[in-house]
């Protein structure tokens, strides 16, 4: 809170207040602006104690230049929000107390009058560069490599001597490639002293060889930088075109990945429906809400794990899977026993009744958890992305794709290899005969519905990682899921898979061409037309009993 108070009191003396006073008479100023006194500070640490971003940045830069080990400690503390300012100096907060960052001495643990050093994006940027500069000299091999990546991503002409020094250092032999790349990036950046043409061209070639968006960005800028030689600019322009071409080719692969990942989500959300609708003929409009329940279960599990077994927190998502399956499945069995079983053979009535169930579930969640979203965290091991050639694979999407495949495989196994699956198929094909053979059809119905609902719960866990967890979650998936099942052919898991792929890849393929909305509309129209030509979907189930 103190931080915020200072934030308020602080007022940048930025000269941008032109357009705000047009309609109304002049008004008295807001909070009195405390103009920070512009004084020549004694050193970097005093700078950082300022409330002025300009001063803080200056301080950070100075620390980076200093090359001191203590400076690195201070910067790392700043990054971790552990740097406090006051009395014209900064302190590092440790577990035991305060350490004066300038001296490294323990300081009296009196927190009054101290405030965390302010951060904004500009400070963070400078901080990253300064840290890289220090690490390049002091860090381990891995740290140095990261530092070079950082320097290359944000090339700064002032860094050139540091790099040259590092290049001369024999311990950096293995980093020569990264060092040269970073150096090349700096040579092509604004503010760099022009070097010999051949060196410039070599830099362009080095960056071009790296490819990718970052290289493109760097070269695009170089192509317009006047201090560079005209030949260099021309080469940079050509390099951009060449990278663009490669990016475009990879772009198709990328779209395919997006399509497949969207398909996985569609498949996950449709698979449970393929069971309840495809196998049992129940039009379960509450399917989306069962997904929602799965997602809320994830939220609850995460909360509980964080509260009682914090050590397992990164794996709460995995713990949530069986729990969500059981909760949604159990709820499904409850719905089947209390509502659906009275409506067998009347699919359209199940539609209306389950719609009623969905409304009640939505409102129940709203009553219990409130109408707003709840926050489900993405564990660290699922965050971020990695490059695969020119493709950028986001980990969470890849995980959902694999998960969808796993669920599909497991479901196929259950249907084909277990007694439940056998009974399910028997009941689907001839209920009376199955009953006569001693299969407890009522139990099979309940379990089948529970299985479909449990899969919805699993889909909910997956969806919680990429989408809102809110009472409206289910509504966003129900129409698409039904389309997948109907488009693919009712009662056919492989059909659902094909339909999910067609809709997902089709949608993502159309999106760059005609936009997301038009793409979706076009797909819907195509599906409508397709179903009118093939009323039973892509892979219709054949047999005598199926005909109405």
């Amino acid at each position, binding site marked *: 809170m103190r931080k915020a108070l200072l934030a308020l009191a602080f007022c940048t003396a930025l000269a941008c207040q032109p357009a705000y006073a047009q309609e109304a008479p002049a008004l008295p100023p807001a909070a009195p602006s405390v103009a920070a006194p512009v004084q020549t500070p004694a050193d970097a640490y005093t700078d950082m104690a300022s409330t002025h971003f300009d001063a803080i940045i200056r301080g950070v830069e100075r620390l980076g230049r200093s090359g001191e080990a203590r400076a690195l400690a201070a910067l790392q503390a700043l990054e971790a929000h552990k740097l406090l300012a006051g009395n014209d100096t900064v302190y590092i907060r440790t577990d035991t107390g305060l350490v004066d960052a300038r001296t490294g001495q323990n300081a009296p643990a009196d927190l009054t009058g101290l405030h965390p050093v302010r951060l904004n994006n500009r400070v963070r940027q400078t901080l990253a560069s300064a840290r890289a500069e220090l690490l390049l000299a002091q860090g381990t091999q891995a740290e140095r490599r990261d530092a070079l990546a950082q320097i290359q991503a944000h090339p700064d002409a002032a860094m050139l001597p540091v790099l040259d020094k590092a290049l001369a250092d024999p311990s950096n032999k293995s980093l020569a490639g990264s060092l040269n790349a970073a150096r090349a990036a700096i040579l092509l950046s604004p503010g760099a002293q022009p070097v010999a043409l051949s060196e410039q061209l070599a830099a362009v070639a080095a960056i071009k060889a790296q490819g990718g968006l970052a290289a493109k960005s760097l070269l695009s800028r170089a192509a317009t930088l006047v201090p560079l030689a005209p030949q260099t600019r021309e080469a940079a322009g050509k390099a951009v075109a060449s990278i663009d071409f490669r990016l475009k080719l990879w772009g198709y692969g990328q779209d395919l990945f997006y399509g497949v990942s969207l398909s996985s989500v569609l498949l996950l959300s449709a698979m449970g429906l393929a069971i309840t609708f495809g196998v049992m003929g129940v039009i379960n409009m509450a399917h989306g809400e069962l997904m929602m329940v799965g997602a809320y279960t994830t939220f609850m599990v995460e909360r509980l794990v964080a509260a009682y077994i914090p050590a397992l927190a990164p794996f709460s998502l995995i713990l949530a899977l069986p729990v969500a399956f059981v909760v949604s499945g159990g709820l499904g069995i409850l719905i089947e026993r209390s509502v659906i079983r009275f409506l067998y053979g009347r699919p359209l009535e199940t539609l209306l009744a389950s719609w009623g169930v969905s409304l009640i579930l939505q409102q129940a969640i709203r009553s219990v958890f409130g109408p707003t979203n709840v926050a489900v965290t993405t564990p660290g091991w699922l965050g971020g992305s990695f490059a695969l050639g020119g493709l950028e694979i986001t980990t969470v999407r890849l995980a959902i794709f694999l998960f969808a495949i796993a669920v599909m495989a497991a479901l196929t196994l259950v249907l084909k290899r277990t007694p439940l699956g056998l009974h399910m198929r028997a009941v689907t094909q001839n209920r009376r005969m199955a009953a006569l053979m001693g299969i407890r059809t009522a139990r099979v119905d309940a379990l089948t519905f529970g299985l479909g609902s449990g899969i919805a719960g699993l889909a909910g866990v997956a969806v919680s990682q990429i989408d809102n967890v809110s009472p409206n979650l289910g509504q966003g998936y129900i129409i698409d899921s039904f389309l997948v099942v*109907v488009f693919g052919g009712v009662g056919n898991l492989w059909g659902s898979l094909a339909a999910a792929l067609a809709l997902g890849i089709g949608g993502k393929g159309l999106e760059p061409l005609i936009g997301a909305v038009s793409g979706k509309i076009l797909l819907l129209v195509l599906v409508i037309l397709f179903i009118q030509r093939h009323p039973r979907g892509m892979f219709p189930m054949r047999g005598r009993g199926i005909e109405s």
Partner: protein
Amino acid sequence: MSTDFSFRSARWTALAVVVLAVVLAFASLLPQSSALSVSPFVVTLCGKYLSYALLALAVDLVWGFAGILTLGHAAFFALGAYGMGMYLTREIGARGVYGNPDLPDFMVFLSWHRLPWYWWGSNHFAISLALMLGVPAVLAGLFGWLAFRSRVSGVYLSIITQALTYALMLAFFQNGMGFGGNNGLTGFKDVLGFDLTAPGTRATLLALTGLILGAVLMGARFLMGGRYGRLLVAVRDTESRTRFLAYRPEQIKLLVWVVSALIAALGGALYVLQIGIVNPGEFAPANSIEAVIWVAVGGRGTLTGAVIGAVLVNLGKTLFTAILPEFWLYGLGALFLATTLFLPHGVMGLLRHVPRKREEEVTPEITNPEGSNA
């Protein structure tokens, strides 16, 4: 399930609707101090219920008689509403916020300079009327022809009707479509030169809606009570059998489908006149599903039931959302469950137990006035 084709209740319902609408309309014109005065709020509400009743009737024709569970009828309702809305928007003329006589406000502030071609004719009431009924009818015709011809039925049909209205909703949400995007069309001033906010106009519109509903109800009774209605039931229950009697069920269903779309569009047009706003939310699949439950609550295949259901459920919604807002969805959900589980024939099913005895005496069609026509 046997169907009573005399629809005696429909006559009384039609009469009741007309009388009620006209009486309310007159009462709303009484001075506020009068004990019998009806507030404009009630007039608008009633107008809304009756417009919804038209939608319900449209759903009942296809669901109750032809067995097509439509989850997309709100699309036709909304298209009719948009047709009327476009006309009303043009009627605003230069009285909009920007004073632009040619372009609706929403086009002005999105810096459009010309009216899109599909707004052509929307400034003439007659052309608009033709469009607001014609467009939904043509769409229904096209959709129905494709669907029924290839014998799409049951759940499959339900799902694609839902996809249809969903696609339309997405399309109308786009600002680029030129229908006002998410905001839709609103801020109407008058219709055919009559001020929409004037009590007289409101009263007239309510009475008109009542009359139209009554007329449509009687028309539906005439059609469904005759041979066509019986044939629809035959198609609904045993479609394949009718083919061997040389009927073409796809044509028979297509006809009722288009008629039903027309009725829904009519309801939409009257709705906009009284509610004063139309936006893409009207296409929402949930709306269509709600319309189905109105019919289910009233009793499907009874005509009267559709009207009763629409009015009852919406009255309930009005009261509930005012008294116990948090519980409205529970109530609506429970209504869906209770109706499907315990009231398969709806309110009309409950009522029908009473005059059971008299029913036996009626010999359908032989004693019908139709028979004596010959």
